[in-house]
Every structure is written in structure tokens, then in C-alpha cells.
């Protein structure tokens, strides 16, 4: 099974909203704790190491891209 990046939610806004609302009212530290737990719960639900690795790679590429852009803007 490969990582699915097509849109899987009938109402993507509801899904995004659910996650955002979970963080409402939390401090940054509490939010980070919540994300850590959420990642582990979801990773276990997926239960496929290859998919997990793909997901990590995809997410990580975005953070790397962002930090490169930041560096270029600073130059």
C-alpha cells in the first residue's frame, strides 16, 4: 500500500477544523503534547511502516523547503 495523497475526506474542511479545534485554548507546549500523542495514535491506526515512512518523508520535505525559503529570504 502506498501513501494516499488524494483527498480522502468527503468534507475536508470538517477534518481540518476538528484538528484546529482540538488545539484551541492550549499553550504551545500543550499543543505539542497533543500532536505527539495524535501522531502516535494515527500511525498505529495506519499500521504500515512503509506508508508511515512515506508520510514522514512528505512532511519532512515541506519543513525543509520552508526553512530553505526562509534562508533565501534572509540572504
Amino acid at each position: 500500500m502506498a501513501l494516499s495523497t488524494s483527498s480522502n475526506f468527503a468534507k475536508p474542511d470538517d477534518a481540518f477544523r476538528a484538528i484546529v479545534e482540538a488545539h484551541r485554548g492550549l499553550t504551545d507546549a500543550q499543543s505539542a503534547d497533543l500532536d505527539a500523542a495524535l501522531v502516535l495514535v494515527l500511525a498505529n491506526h495506519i499500521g504500515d511502516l512503509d506508508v508511515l515512512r512515506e508520510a514522514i518523508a512528505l512532511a519532512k520535505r515541506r519543513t525543509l523547503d520552508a526553512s530553505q525559503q526562509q534562508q533565501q529570504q534572509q540572504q
Partner: protein
Amino acid sequence: MASAHTAQAKTQFGYRRHPDQERSGANIAEHPVVVVGAGPVGLSLAIDLAQRGQRVVLLDDADRIGEGSRAICFSKRSLEFWDRLGVGDRMVEKGVVWSVGKIFHGASQLYQFNLLPEEGHKRPAFINLQQFYAEAYLVDRVEQLPDIDLRWRNKVIALESRNDGVALTIATPEGSYQVYASFVVACDGARSSLRQMVGAEFAGQVFEDQFLIADVKMTAAFPTERWFWFDPPFHAGRSALLHRQPDDIWRIDLQLNPDADPVAEKQPENVRPRIERMLGHDKFEFEWISLYKFQCRRMAKFIHGRVIFAGDSAHQVSPFGARGANSGLEDAENLAWKLDRVLRRASPEGLLESYHIERSAAADENIRESTRSTDFMAPVTKQEARLRQAVLSLAKDTEFGKRMVNGGRLSVPSVYDTPLSSGDRDSWRGGPRPGASMLDAPVTEPGGGSSYLTEVFIRQGTRFTLLEFGNGAAADVPEGVGSIRLGGEGGLVDAQGLAGKRYDAEPGTAYLLRPDGYVAARFRNATRPALDAALARASGLN
């Protein structure tokens, strides 16, 4: 500090001058194999080689067995090896048998595990036994074997490799002398001087966290289980381990901060309040205190010409998982039969390369497992700590969380991906695959007596052995190969059906076991040509 063990086991030995020391020049003594280091690995290797008919010189730079409990957890696999060396019963009689571990977070239990939840094995998952007892029993066994020449206070100070062997210069209280050896096995520990002499690197990961070991003597009602705490009330923010040893000795392992002062932390007056907080009383005495940092690393090559490295000299892991001494013992059993065959010229020297292939892969596995445990106990970054915390809190109410909690994954035998194995050609639903170690099971002798497969294997001489599930006449077994037959006329009886189940057996199923008890090949029907081919492959002959 008290040393109660001296009354029960001999630990002090004397230097004795050897006739080799009179020889020099063209007259230097030549030996087939010299083992350097009389710790658990060197002693076990020497015994195995001697039992296979080799003459062994065993050197040790000290004249006594080291102080302190050090390694305490010996695995089922190690006990099965020691059974073959004739010391298993003594170890188990003295040792504390255990198989259950419990993991706590704060004051409450997260979960428990059983490392050997099934019946029908001769040996338990683990025993706890102070290393000095293990060494003392091994020395006693060595002294029964005239083919082992154990020389105390003989320190190798120089090594010169030759095409057909090694010249060793050995220092003694009466000056130095030389010997030649066809093979040298360096079992001289983590700070191996032989490793430096061959110029090998020993690179790896250093962990900053410090751990305090205190072995205390007390009478306590704790069950014989491995207890591990994350963030216990008595040692906030760090981890702790409690483990029982013989003689009312308890191993306590406390994680300290990376910046803790090692000299101060070791002082009994500073350790005492920590232990009092843990136990809730002060009725204990210290047996041994040690403070350590550790490294995970291995040599790139375990074989340097005719110098072979085994045990801590070749690889080091963190102590969480009982992977140090046990993996060293697995090195010894892996090497002994191969070196014996090479010395007898039954196999080419290339067979030894499989020792490096199999055991360096096992070392990588041990390093990987113990590094993961260590990282879990001592998270490096803030986010790592956060993820660890999330796992611990999820473990309270989810099964997946419990399984992710890593308080040490305990040593199990590796499965070798090795050129000595013949791959499966038939279809199997279970059973140990080629490269895995044999499984024990209870069997009944034709006369009615009960025994175990591991015992029958020993009686076959721990040589290549065909384990066969009877189907009419016995298989045509090549010369020199032992035979264990279950079922059929005159065969052993699998009364409880456990052997058949564990080996996924049908009538005619046969496993070719190596002399170290690993599976070389398996067949639904063993034909002579297929057996011959598998045997040749496992002997390094093709």
C-alpha cells in the same frame, strides 16, 4: 564492602611457571589455538573447543575472578550452550529463575510481560546469576579438562601476524616469553588490548546519561521479576530497575543526570539515601556500587588474519536487554565448531568468514535494539521526550501504547541470514527456518523416561544432526551426522505433540541442525543428495 561470594566459589588463582617459558628462538612452542581472556566468553569457548578434541591455551592477565556482579542475566540460549559444556545445571541451581517483567510509570503498573509463556522447555527464559559465579563454575569445568592449559597472570604484550599464524609475546611475573599460535581468539573485553595491537578501530555511539548500579543485600518480599520504572516517585524524572540475584542480593540500577559528578555519586553515603527512598527503609548493605556510561559500537571486521575477536572485544551494547554477555556466549558457540573443523582440516578456513557474517549481523541487531531502549529511557531532544511521554500516557489505556513502551527488549537468539543455510524449497507454515536456532520440546524416550530435544541433541555429540519426524524407515544419514528420530520404531515419542507443533512437522519432515544447534536446512522429505548438498554448504565446502 562485603564479599560474601568468596566463601562459596573459588575466585583466587595462582600464577605457575610453564615449560613454554624456557623456550626461545627456533624452539618456541607452537599451539593450534590460544584464547586470550578468561571471562565468560573465553572460558566457554575454551571448554567447547576442548570438548571437540582441541588443545587450547587460555591466557588471562589477572589471577583472580573480577569483583562485582557485573553481568547478571543469562538467557535460555546461554543456558542451553552451558548445558552442552556441562555447567548448565550448576548455573541454574545457583541462579534465580525468572520470566516475568513489569513496567511501571510513576507509582502505577503499566503492563507486564512473560518472556516464556509456554511449557515444555528444559530451560527458563532467564536466570540471574552474578558473573563471578558463572566464571567460577566455568573455571571448575576447565580444570576437569586436561586439554585446556589455563595460565593466570599471562598478559599478551605484543602480537605479530604471520601468514600461517600469530606470534604472541606474553609477560608474566617472571619475565616475558613467546608462543606461536595457528589461531588466536581475543576474548579480552571491551578495552581489548589485542584489538589495539591489530590496529582495528572501534567506533560507535557514546551515550551521555550516567547509570548507577548498586547491588544491595537485604531480605525482601519482592517477587522474582524484572521491575522497571519510568519516572518513579522515589527517583523523579529518571528510570530505575530492580532485579533479584542469588544470596539475597538485589540489583538496583538508577539513571542519573548526564552532568552528575561520577566520583561523588559513587560514594556509599550519597547512594544510601537514593536507595532508602526507593525501598522505604534502611535495612540493606552494599555489595557493589558502580557508575557507568556506555557506548554502542562494534569492530568492522571480527576477523583480522588469524586473530579472531569474540564478546565485548568485538562489540559493546548498553546493558538494557541482557545483550552483552549473552551475545558474547553466542559468539563463542558460533565460533567453536567452525574453528574446530578448520583446525581438523574438515572445512576450509573460509568457513570462519561465516562467523563474522553471522555474529556481526547479530551485533548490529543487538546494538540497534539496545540503542532504541536507551533512547527511550533517555530522550535526547525535547520533542523526543514529548513523544516518549505520549507513549507512556497512551500505554495506560491502549494496547499499542503498552507495546511501544521500551524498558529494554531482552536478548533472544538472532536469525542468521547466512551462506551456510540452504533456503527452503518446501512449503512451511511455521517452525524454525534455516538460520534460526533449534527449539526445545519435551520428548519421551522409547523406555518411557522423559527428556528434552536439547538434551538429546547433546547426547548426539552437538555435531551436525538430523532431527527427523518418522515416516517408515529412517532417512539415509551421511556419515558423521547424528540422528534424532521422533516417532517410528525405536524413535522418541512426541507424547504432548509439542515437538511436532513447534517444528511444523508432518511425517517425513527433517531438520538438519548445525553443531551449534542452528537450523542449516529443512525438508518435507530428506533425500540423500539434498542432505549431502545442505551438509556441504553448512560446512563451508562450496
